[in-house]
């Protein structure tokens, strides 16, 4: 009887601990748990804490701004999947993962089902190489296989892969990985965009999109530099991007002036809506032909250096 009684007591103890945890989580209707800051004194907490978070769009969102209906698919622009297993050190693997995520988005935006699947497999493989395999799992591959006809689904899955990776890295304190991966994704997005421009005089839409990336690189660099990382991979990644950043720093920023209005009655529904527009052509950043040529040269050089196998 004694062992049985011991078992019973231990089970009650375990059950109580689990119930305590469950009750704590159930303090509100949603699943959020408010945490006691037990290690921080009240005196510490009397000082307000200010945090600035710099965010930037995913490669799929960057590319989706471009009107693909007037552009032909060009597989030659993408980094071939065969190269993926030839990147050996973690910095190059992480940078390449970013590039492949952009190529994945490019394929998804063109509705190239087979190629989307191939590039997702590469993304999964490289993610495993740098130990973030939980972020891109087999279920994502299955989703692509099961969504052959749905262009929007391919786009969503490609975007989800990027968001999952960022989220995984954030949960696991992998900020250095985020920097190298985002730099690779950003470089490849710029590369694809500059390669789509054949004639400067007739490419207003893509040129404006390129000029708008001034905001993206500003936020990315503020985020990356804010980490203060001395990781050699991060340091060299940021150094590599300096030339591109300096070109964006030099372009006409625009006045930034905007007009703001409430939505028209027919647009007005829940929630409340404001519409923000430019108050003239000079309010937006502008790329001159000289700026564009300098940007194209810098982007192509960095991208080609990044894809080559040593």
């Amino acid at each position: 009887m004694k062992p049985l009684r011991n078992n019973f007591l231990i089970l009650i103890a375990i059950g109580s601990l689990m119930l305590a945890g469950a009750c704590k989580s159930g303090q509100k209707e949603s699943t959020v748990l408010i945490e006691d800051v037990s290690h921080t004194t009240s005196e510490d907490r009397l000082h307000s804490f200010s945090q600035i978070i710099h965010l930037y769009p995913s490669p799929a969102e960057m590319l989706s701004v471009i009107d693909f209906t007037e552009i032909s698919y060009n597989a030659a622009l993408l980094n071939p999947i065969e190269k993926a297993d030839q990147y050996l050190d973690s910095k190059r693997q992480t940078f390449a993962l970013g590039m492949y995520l952009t190529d994945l988005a490019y394929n998804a935006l063109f509705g190239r089902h087979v190629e989307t699947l191939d590039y997702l497999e590469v993304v999964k493989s490289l993610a495993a190489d740098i130990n973030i395999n939980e972020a891109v799992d087999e279920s994502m591959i299955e989703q692509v296989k099961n969504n052959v006809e749905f262009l929007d689904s391919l786009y969503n899955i490609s975007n989800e892969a990027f968001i999952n990776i960022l989220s995984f890295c954030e949960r696991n304190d992998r900020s250095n990985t985020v920097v190298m991966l985002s730099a690779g994704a950003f470089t490849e997005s710029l590369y694809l965009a500059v390669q789509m421009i054949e004639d400067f005089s007739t490419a207003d839409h893509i040129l404006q999109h390129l000029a708008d990336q001034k905001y993206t690189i500003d936020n990315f660099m503020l985020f990356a530099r804010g980490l203060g990382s001395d990781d050699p991979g991060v340091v060299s990644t940021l150094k590599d991007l300096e030339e591109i950043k300096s070109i964006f720093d030099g372009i006409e920023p625009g006045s930034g002036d905007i007009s703001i209005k409430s939505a028209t009655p027919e647009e007005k529904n829940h929630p409340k809506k404001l519409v923000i527009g430019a108050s003239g052509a000079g309010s937006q950043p502008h790329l001159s032909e000289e700026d564009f040529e300098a940007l194209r040269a810098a982007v192509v050089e960095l991208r080609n250096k990044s894809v080559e196998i040593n």
Partner: protein
Amino acid sequence: MKLIRKIQVVAVLFLIIPGHLFSQNCATHHLDGDCHNDVQKGYKVYSQSHSTQISALDTVEMSIVFYGQKDYILSFCTHKNLYPIHFVLIDEQTKEVLYDNEEDKYLESLGLGFDVAKPMILRVNAIARLSNDEEINDKIGCLGLLIQYKNYSRKKVQLQL
């Protein structure tokens, strides 16, 4: 006896693993918190949706790049004791305050249409009206910002051109 040993090991593990390991990470609060109630059909989740920890004493600023020719919905959510959420939309270039939700009794969702790309700052703090002084000093919770977007309709684009 083997069974007892196993149970004892499990019990010890429960005792020595710090409680915070069982607590929720804030990273995905915008997806699994109350923001989820604002998900709109036809909109996609913007990758700059973000979650972080906040207390009633903190101010969080998020710098966000909004691409042009898109409609967005911003939705904020947090722990019930930290509501209402106060947010201010600021033009990053001119530092002009474009909107303050205090004027709308701290509404938690705002629609935004961007004709052109703009960087914006969202300055957020939790008013925590239901918390007492002790809770305000000692409690932190998750703050989620869910951003959804969809492209302007072609008709709208033509009108603007």
